[in-house]
């Protein structure tokens, strides 16, 4: 893997967001934002495999994968890596998967897919991560929320290993996470929805629901609250 350097405002993307955006045909918004930002949308090899290589072998999922392949071919998204990425991913996963314990057994909640995205951001010295997946986001932003959630869902007491939690927070504390929903709102603010001629607000609302139904972890309440503010 060729090591590349990127502008500090570049965004590392998880497959969950690219799948949501490709499924709802909003990859061009990414292209527009890239032009405004003058920075890159970056993915790891594992993310490429999850959202392009693997689905291209499945007839029902080929079309969105082709859209993403085109975005890759045209430089809208770029694949990057680093020599140390594998080790960094393994470290991050080991730590993340040893934060919560049930009956002295670690609850392994994270997997390579998300781990490599976060590790890539850290390896490249970038702070912006686009991720629609809920678990990793909550683990980074509110581990207590996640602990409480696991207890409720798994009907067992969950203990936090503070040593690993501290290490995880040291590693990921500097990351800023956002979802494709926020990206679409930003695209709207930069005029991407003008093509909907007079129906911009309605189109944005529809886009937010579309992205939610494609897997973005935004709640109905958040969408409703935002669209109310749009109409005011």
């Amino acid at each position, binding site marked *: 893997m060729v090591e590349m350097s990127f502008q500090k405002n570049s965004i590392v993307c998880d497959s969950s967001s690219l799948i949501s955006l490709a499924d709802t045909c909003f990859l061009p918004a990414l292209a527009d934002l890239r*032009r405004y930002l003058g920075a890159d949308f970056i993915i790891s090899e594992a993310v490429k495999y999850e959202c392009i290589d693997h689905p291209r072998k499945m007839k029902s999922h080929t079309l969105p994968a082709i859209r993403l392949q085109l*975005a890759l071919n045209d430089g809208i998204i770029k694949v990057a890596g680093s020599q140390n990425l594998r080790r960094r991913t393994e470290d991050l996963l080991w730590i993340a998967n040893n934060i919560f314990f049930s009956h002295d057994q670690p609850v392994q909640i994270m997997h390579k897919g*998300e781990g490599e995205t976060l590790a890539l951001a850290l390896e490249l010295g970038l702070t912006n991560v686009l991720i629609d997946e809920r678990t990793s986001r909550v683990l980074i932003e509110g581990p207590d929320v996640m602990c409480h959630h696991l207890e409720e869902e798994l009907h067992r007491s969950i203990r936090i290993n503070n040593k690993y939690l501290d290490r995880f927070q040291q590693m990921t504390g500097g990351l800023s996470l956002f979802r494709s929903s926020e990206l679409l709102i*930003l695209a709207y603010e930069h005029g991407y929805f003008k093509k909907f001629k007079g129906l911009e607000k309605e189109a944005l609302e529809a886009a937010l629901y579309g992205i939610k139904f494609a*897997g973005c972890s935004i709640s109905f*309440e*958040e969408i409703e609250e935002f669209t109310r503010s749009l109409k005011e």
Partner: protein
Amino acid sequence: MATGEQLLSLLRAMRRALDDGDLASLRKTSTSAVEITAMDDGEDTFYIALISHMLSKLLSRSHYWDLKQKKRFAKTALRKVDKCVTAVEKQDMQAYSKTVRDIVSDMRDLEVTDPRYVNDVEAKARTKLASRLYAQGFSLSRAVAITGASKRDLQAYSGRTLIADRTGKTKTLEERLKHLRELFSSPILADGNGAWSC
């Protein structure tokens, strides 16, 4: 890995439910099995989750079976579950693995009889089980890795549930937007060929 006791308990519960034609218990067994799979990171229990779920779906569709065929299928499945129980009791995990895969394969073979949806039942079962794991707090990729579901299917399925509404609020939308707006505060219109589409 799940203990032999856990496996036997799940297999016996599945057998009882199948014998009684108790679809609710089959689904309950599936839920218990997938939870153990997620905690123990083992394939052995996942197959019990998958089989129980698929059986509950297949057997619930009365139009799909004439009674004789249904009984014959259930009988064969029961015999194979018994074989699984014996294998686990003898700690012969190779035989166990082979037999559970055989049961899934038998269900796939039903597709030949009626190609409408059996394969679909397996894919849907995997997606449903993955969605349950995601709802419980396991990551998307972890849920996919455990169940073999497609990530896109899982996202589409979970996107239509209240998973994101129940847990996941850590920052407000406005807080996230604020940061993103700052990031885009000094736009640079790079050279481009106009709008990109795909």
